[in-house]
């Protein structure tokens, strides 16, 4: 609360300054406001010396903490704060910076800031008592974020690996299924105006129908015509291109958030801060993943799906309606992808490239876990998510994906069959 007050007064001070001195262009000058914890500090002497060593002028901060020194022309000046004039209990935050070299530009007034702190609180960049977080807090936060992201990837990966598993199709258009779900929800939520929860439910159903339709009217037909898997893979690239630009056409190039839960304030749970929506989303994701994974392992239709994956002709010979199983898988896959898209949109906004941009990570997750394993996608994706986030502890964040991808490659070196994959028998 105290902090808020300080920030507020600081902000008000700035505002006042802006309003009272609107014209920068009046002539070159140096100025500033001295404040200590939001309170103006007066009576501090500041002197300005030109580059060639000629003194220009001095000023003393007024009751509002302000000082100003007009300078003759643009150029470099040395500005020095006379620390001996600082009132008791006030010190410079950056103690070695009582003199600053400041460039003044043509026709503009230059602001100079001497940061002041109560004496004793010496100038670290991030004094811990000031609300900054420790390194380990950040690691905890990143771990949480790793799971958060990993679960979304896992959800997307589950849909992908279901379809890959049963049909052998490497579906590059899977990212667009995500986008589709996210946009559906956007439509119902923002355009139609129903609450996001309902919009999401509707969209998951529509996503399922979309998946069903894709198989019924597209992939299924291709399969029956005997298209090779490679040809189908390339067709999926074409389809991805098509869908992506349909989205661009109707949605436009900008990203947009949902009407609900956008910028939800975080709550602090131990060392991590998270929005309540994160917890709910993660719960739902985990639940869906576990249910689908178990269904695949334990239920009759799940086993049938794995059987179809292994050998469709033999599955048919066992009395399994292969087309029906594949259609169910597509429907479930579409629905899960839709949900994944909505979750992604919830945390990252809806945009026409959202699915495409995460696709690589999804593939990485599926592969890392081991192709064709029920829980591989889950494990692999979480590893990917964790490494993306945690690698920023050592690499610049712009390279965080590099960190995760490197891990992928390394894991492949030591476990070529993926984390949960099994080696195949030769001979």
């Amino acid at each position: 609360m105290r902090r808020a007050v300080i920030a507020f007064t600081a902000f008000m001070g700035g505002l006042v300054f802006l309003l009272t001195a609107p014209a920068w262009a009046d002539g070159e000058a140096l100025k500033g406001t001295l404040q200590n914890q939001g309170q103006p500090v007066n009576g501090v002497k500041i002197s300005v010396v030109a580059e060639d060593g000629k003194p220009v002028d001095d000023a003393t901060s007024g009751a509002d903490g302000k000082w100003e020194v007009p300078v003759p022309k643009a150029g470099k000046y040395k500005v020095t704060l006379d620390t001996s004039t600082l009132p008791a209990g006030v010190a410079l935050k950056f103690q070695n910076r009582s003199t600053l070299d400041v460039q003044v530009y043509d026709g503009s007034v230059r602001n100079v800031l001497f940061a002041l702190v109560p004496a004793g609180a010496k100038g670290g960049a991030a004094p811990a008592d000031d609300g900054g977080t420790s390194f380990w807090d950040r690691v905890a936060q990143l771990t949480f974020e790793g799971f958060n992201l990993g679960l979304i990837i896992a959800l997307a990966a589950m849909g992908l690996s279901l379809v890959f598993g049963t049909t052998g199709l490497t579906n590059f258009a899977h990212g667009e299924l995500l986008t589709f779900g996210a946009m559906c929800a956007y439509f119902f939520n923002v355009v139609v105006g129903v609450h996001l929860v309902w919009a999401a439910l509707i969209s998951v159903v529509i996503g399922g129908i979309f998946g069903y339709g894709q198989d019924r009217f597209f992939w299924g037909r291709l399969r029956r015509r005997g298209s090779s898997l490679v040809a189908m893979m390339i067709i999926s690239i074409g389809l991805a291109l098509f869908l992506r630009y349909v989205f661009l056409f109707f949605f436009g190039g900008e990203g947009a958030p949902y009407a609900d839960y956008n910028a939800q304030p975080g709550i602090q749970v131990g060392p991590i801060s998270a929005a309540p929506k994160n917890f709910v989303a993660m719960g739902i994701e985990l639940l869906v993943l576990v249910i689908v994974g178990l269904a695949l392992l334990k239920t009759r239709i799940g086993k049938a799906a794995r059987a179809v994956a292994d050998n469709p002709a033999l599955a048919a010979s066992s009395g399994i309606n292969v087309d029906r199983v594949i259609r169910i898988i597509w429907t479930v896959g579409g629905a899960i992808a839709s949900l994944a898209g909505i979750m992604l949109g919830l945390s990252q906004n809806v945009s026409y490239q959202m699915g495409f941009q995460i696709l690589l990570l999804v593939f990485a997750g599926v592969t890392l876990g081991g192709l064709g394993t029920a829980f591989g996608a889950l494990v692999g994706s979480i590893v990917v998510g964790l490494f993306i986030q945690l690698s920023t502890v050592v690499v610049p964040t712009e390279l965080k994906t590099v960190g995760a991808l490197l891990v992928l490659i390394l894991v492949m070196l030591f476990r070529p069959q993926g984390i949960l994959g099994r080696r195949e028998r030769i001979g």
Partner: protein
Amino acid sequence: MDWNAILITTVKASIGLETVVYALAAIGVNIQFGYAGLLNFGQAAFLGVAAYGMAVTVATFHLPFWLGIAIGLAATVVLAFLLGIPTLRLRADYLAIVTIAAAEIVRLVFRSVKFSSVFGGSDGRQNFSGDFFAMNPYSPGTYGIGPISFNERVTWILTVGWVLIAICCGLVYLLMKSPWGRVLKAIREDEDAVRSLGKNVFSYKMQALVLGGLVGCLGGFLFALGQASVQPDLFSTEFTFYAYTIVILGGAARVFSPVVGAAIFWVLLVFVGNTLSEAVSAGMLPSLFTVNNIGAVRFMLVGLGLMLLLIFRPQGIFGDKREIALDAR
């Protein structure tokens, strides 16, 4: 509707720089994937390291052009080994993901601010093509037949490009007719069988990876020289996807398929794009279509076109239907 301009640009696109670059990249992919069955989804990285190898040598370190080319080639080979040694033992689909990942790593490193003093960040590098164009034997002017003509710079780069394509096609033809090519094709079908016949599978895969990478890397040089500039995002995963599309369009494991595929791809892209933009400016389309979204429509149509081509000719232009029948599931 300026049909004239549309047709001329389309014809020019069929032999233009992009076609040359994509054709070379696709020839490389064809060697790796079409013949040897290596799902190398990192072809863009090969072009990237070659282009950057040359550009950085010349533009950042101010060394001679030919040294740049040599470094570009060396970088390609090094990348092939770095990628190959660990990954060639992997199953095909795993290899695909690992190579995509590697290519993204390469791109992200080129792009990063951390290394921008060397690679130039997202702007990449310029000012390295001087020596190449200084070798231009064509005097200033235009060359070509009627309206299908190019200025001397473009003519020069296209000449080099098409000569390289011809050489590469010849090389592929000779190789794939030979026992060497036979081993490669056999590896594509079943490594273990080939191993049991006393062939060093790893070595052949590596040869294919390096060769495909080197052919692709020529495309990288031409790309950089032709644009007189390299940027990291030129070498993104989409590039590789398109190279694969091109190979399959033409028909995998056929000598000329990458070249024809590349031409078709660019003709499609340019023809559709230019026709649409002309139609919009001539007001021939419903008002739903505007200059702002017509670019999207273009890619929609291109995507659709690719799908249709492959749906109705799944074996590609030159492919053999019998082969396709074998791997239907």
